[in-house]
């Protein structure tokens, strides 16, 4: 039998190879499926993450379309409320844990070593393991839909006791799958921190790193801080369900509100885990296509750090209606409003970067610009939600649904798409098809706004979230939202087409695919990036002031 484990391009090996001055010290990788199962190359693992995330994006999207189909008209037409609740829950869980987070991890795997001039991630074998945990975790999660009593039906926030005492029998599997996904994220985070702190090209200081690297470093710290808390919460749930403890059960001396405090202590930083790397991507794209350096690099870094620190102090704004003493409400209200300051700084810096630039509108820039506008709209509704007295009216309505979808879909997901368009030439060596990309962009923008903008109105007019059927006055808004959702959903097939075409051919891209204003290190390697890069660390040159 052939050797089971292929030679690992570990740090030691690659550096020896680099020292010898040859790139060919690597043995040929195993062929076929085994190559992908065993790969320890950051680019291949990055690709695996991205493909996995795109697949899950479509699965989560189908769940969303089931929800929108049922809500197309008043009445129950297509699914029963039991299944509807499973769809809303699964949509949220899959999109958060299996689409957005792995997409950013995939981009991190691909780009961080390239951007800091490292030959690979610090812990390549661990990297492989953390990826392959994901299909296991989400295969298990999806399989709960077929179990007796159905899958999780208590919302992605899984509030106790609905998710404990009153949960379907499959909940133990749900907990297990979340544990596995959590371990995957944690291992990924450790790897990213170890890479960024130890593997930078000689001469690159922390304050020289591209913002994508910076935002990911801070995100990884957030992950390390809060994923164990999530693990703790679901362990308590597991014990309540199976071992007769009463963490969240009032009957046994526990407290259901404790669940919400613990969950949101994890949950709010989690929200920033899904948006900070997006800031990094946009901060790379806007200067490139404005042909001008990013305005206020240092303040961008400080703003991200400030947002990360504040994210630990604001969880209570998800719980204004739970009943808190006045001082508690005031504290969480003020802390939440404060987040608007660093977030504002970021938006102002982006605008200042464009101001007196020389702007062109290639697909990555279109998505990045749409990100800035739509994320800011989501930010405004976030500010409104922070105002506790008004939040009593907004809480748990479609206004909230509109808010977090504005920051996550035309926010985080548009940034991921922008990043994909930006780096596709580096990944494949070809430019994405211009015409198809334009169609993809405009249909996505129209679809996304048609879906989520009317939700502000239905929420303000009184429609609670997570209901399978609604009163007649909400019918028009829901009709619009459903139409938009189908436009947005189906237009993502264009994205798949763009990727497939781009992999197979298209206009050849040079190393500096987007011109001389994209100065980060990834543009110094050829397009497509060869499997092994920076085996000899590059010399880092600081841009002149």
């Amino acid at each position, binding site marked *: 039998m052939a050797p089971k484990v292929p030679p690992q391009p570990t740090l030691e090996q690659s550096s020896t190879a680099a020292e010898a001055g040859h790139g060919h010290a690597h043995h040929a990788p195993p062929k076929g499926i085994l190559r992908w199962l065993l790969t320890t190359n950051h680019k291949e693992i990055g690709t695996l993450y991205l493909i996995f995330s795109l697949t899950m994006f479509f699965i989560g999207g189908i769940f969303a379309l089931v929800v929108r189909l049922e809500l197309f008209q008043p009445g129950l037409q297509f699914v029963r409320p039991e299944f509807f609740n499973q769809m809303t829950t699964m949509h949220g869980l899959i999109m958060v844990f299996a689409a957005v987070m792995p997409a950013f991890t995939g981009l991190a795997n691909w780009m961080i070593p390239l951007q800091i001039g490292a030959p690979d991630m610090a812990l390549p074998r661990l990297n492989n393991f953390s990826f392959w945990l994901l299909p296991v975790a989400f295969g298990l999660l999806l399989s709960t839909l077929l179990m007796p009593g159905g899958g999780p039906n208590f919302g992605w926030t899984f509030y106790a006791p609905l998710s404990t005492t009153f949960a379907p029998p499959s909940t133990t599997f749900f907990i297990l799958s979340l544990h596995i996904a959590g371990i995957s994220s944690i291992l990924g985070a450790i790897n990213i921190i*170890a890479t960024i702190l130890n593997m930078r090209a000689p001469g690159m200081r922390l304050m020289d790193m591209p913002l994508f690297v910076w935002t990911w470093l801070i995100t990884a710290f957030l992950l*390390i801080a809060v994923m164990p808390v999530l*693990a703790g919460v679901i362990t*308590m749930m597991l014990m309540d369900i199976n071992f007769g403890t009463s963490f969240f059960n009032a009957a*046994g*001396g526990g*407290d259901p509100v404790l669940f919400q*405090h*613990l969950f949101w202590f994890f949950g709010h930083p989690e929200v920033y885990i899904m948006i900070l790397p997006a800031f990094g991507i946009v901060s790379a794209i806007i200067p490139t296509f404005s042909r001008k350096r990013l305005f206020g690099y240092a303040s961008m870094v400080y703003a991200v750090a400030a947002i990360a620190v504040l994210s630990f102090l604001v969880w209570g704004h998800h719980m204004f209606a739970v009943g808190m003493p006045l001082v508690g409400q005031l504290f969480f209200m003020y802390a939440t409003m404060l987040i608007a300051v660093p977030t504002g700084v970021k938006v102002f810096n982006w605008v200042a970067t464009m101001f007196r630039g020389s702007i062109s509108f290639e697909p990555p820039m279109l998505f990045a610009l749409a990100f800035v506008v739509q994320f800011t709209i989501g930010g405004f509704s976030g500010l409104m939600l922070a105002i506790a007295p008004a939040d009593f009216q907004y809480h748990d309505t479609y206004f909230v649904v509109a808010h977090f979808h504005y920051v996550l879909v035309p926010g985080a997901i548009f940034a991921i798409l922008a990043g994909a368009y930006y780096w596709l030439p580096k990944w494949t060596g070809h430019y994405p098809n211009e015409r198809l990309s334009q169609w993809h962009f405009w249909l996505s923008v129209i679809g996304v706004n048609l879906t989520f903008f009317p939700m502000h109105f239905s929420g303000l007019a009184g429609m609670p979230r997570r209901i399978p059927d609604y009163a007649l006055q909400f019918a028009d808004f829901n009709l619009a939202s459903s139409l938009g959702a189908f436009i947005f959903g189906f237009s993502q097939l264009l994205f798949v087409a763009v990727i497939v075409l781009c992999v197979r051919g298209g206009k050849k891209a040079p190393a500096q695919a987007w011109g001389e204003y994209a100065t980060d290190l990834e543009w110094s390697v050829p397009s497509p990036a060869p499997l092994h890069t920076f085996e000899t660390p590059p010399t880092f040159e600081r841009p002149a002031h």
Partner: protein
Amino acid sequence: MSPNETRARQAGVRRTVWRSVAALAGMFAFAFALVPLYDAFCRLTGINGKVDTTAQAIVSEEVDESRTVTVQFITRNGAGLPWHMQAETRQVRLHPGQTSEVNFTFRNQSDGESWGRAVPSVSPSNATRHVRKTSCFCFEEQQLQAGERIELPLVFQLARDLPPEVHTVTLVYTLYPVEGKRQPQQAVVQTKQGEEA
């Protein structure tokens, strides 16, 4: 890169990993530590109307006759316990500093013994800290034989420093069966069998 630099890198990676693992373990422990911390915090601030479930000493302080506060008693039955619980009076009016005693009746209306516990909650939350109970059935689990009827007292005092804006304090007791101690009618319903008879 020189072998020295490579070694330094690897040592750096190892250090980062161990620190991360320590932070992870710390945060996992912190999540569990939050449970008692939250409890203590709630009792301190009155979040959720949580009250001490241990007896406190009555403080003899001057009765503040300038204020009268209404104290309401509400009893509720959780699912699964064949008991009836009732306060002898719906409400009392008293001055801060004054000690009061109210009797609660518990009746087991089934033909088997069972265990129950009354979970207390107080509203408004800013009054919670100022309710002192010296004796309460809610401190411990109760056992009632078939058809048994017992009367248990609640002895309490409102502290003089009860916030001046509070006019009504509501004490709510929800009766729950004690898990793991077999309830007669449940034994038939559930396939899960309790260990004790």
